[in-house]
């Protein structure tokens, strides 16, 4: 039997030394779960992860921000509703909307926080089947021009884990039509819609493409031996999620396509 490494070797990409100078902030709220995984994904992609605390009043000198998954403030009231008003969020909202267009990625609960913040349109409600669902999910990258998808090809299919209960993306028809027309549907579920999301939408971006949110978890698919291909063999590779992080790092250091 082949022995798997206890901790995956950080060999997924041959990182350019320049990338280590790029600082990606990872925000932790009370109830955040996936901040360590997100920070690890940043490091595996070659960058430097900077822990940020929700009550901080300044962003520091980070070049991009990841808002990870979990259950901020227990998801009381609504998913992301209380986190949206954390002191650090107002800094992130300003920086994302500024001319500098700070790249911001919201994953799962982070996506919910971004919609509550009005950085992204629409909202998430309970899955149409009412159950928590955890599975490896195939996504199609519909837009490879956002800050977080430059290292993918448009139309490329990737497999990353998905785990949520409030993952049904909804918006009114006018907003959905505008998102489609402007190429702001960044990811779509392929083969199976796991939560009833309108038009199979898994992730979207803002108009400028620096803010991206999605329900599935790319940060859980960054290491050989610990990703979807190794665990249930539905296809894809173990490291399909790594491109999110290499995309933004390459953009920051000026090496993006």
């Amino acid at each position, binding site marked *: 039997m082949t022995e798997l490494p206890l901790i995956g070797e950080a060999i997924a990409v041959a990182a350019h030394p320049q990338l280590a100078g790029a600082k990606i902030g990872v925000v932790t709220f009370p109830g955040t779960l996936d901040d360590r995984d997100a920070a690890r994904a940043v490091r595996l992609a070659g960058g430097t992860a900077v822990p940020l605390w929700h009550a901080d009043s300044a962003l520091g000198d980070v070049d991009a921000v990841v808002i990870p998954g979990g259950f901020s403030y227990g998801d009381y009231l609504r998913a992301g*509703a209380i986190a949206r008003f954390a002191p650090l969020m107002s800094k992130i909202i300003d920086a994302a909307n500024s001319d500098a267009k700070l790249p911001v990625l919201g994953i799962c609960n982070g996506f919910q926080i971004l919609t509550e913040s009005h950085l992204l349109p629409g909202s998430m409600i309970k899955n149409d089947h009412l159950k928590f669902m955890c599975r490896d999910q195939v996504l199609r990258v519909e837009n490879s021009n956002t800050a977080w998808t430059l290292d993918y090809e448009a139309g490329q299919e990737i497999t990353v884990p998905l785990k949520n209960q409030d993952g049904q993306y909804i918006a009114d028809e006018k907003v959905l039509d505008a998102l489609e027309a402007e190429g702001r549907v960044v990811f779509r579920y392929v083969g199976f819609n796991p939560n009833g999301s309108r038009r199979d939408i898994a992730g979207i971006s803002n108009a400028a493409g620096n803010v991206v949110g999605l329900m599935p978890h790319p940060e859980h698919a960054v290491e050989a031996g610990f990703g979807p291909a190794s665990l249930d063999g539905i296809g894809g590779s173990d490291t399909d999620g790594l491109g999110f992080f290499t995309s933004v790092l390459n953009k920051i250091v000026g090496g993006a396509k």
Partner: protein
Amino acid sequence: MPRIVVDVMPKPEILDPQGKAIVGALPRLGFTAFSSVRQGKRFELTVDGEVTEEILAQARNAAETLLSNPVIEDVVNVEVVEA
């Protein structure tokens, strides 16, 4: 102490998955008269002292900004209830 009650409901055009689950359970208990259920939220905001127009305006503002998400929910009622 007076309280301000805020009622929030899912927008009518949005299918309410929780209500759907409840309406499925009712007939199993013999409650067969109900064809549909929608589940909302009730908030009770306690005020120390008198509820002035200014405080009521604050409650309405809080209802629109924090207590509800206008993309998916409507504030259907804001009223003062004397203890």
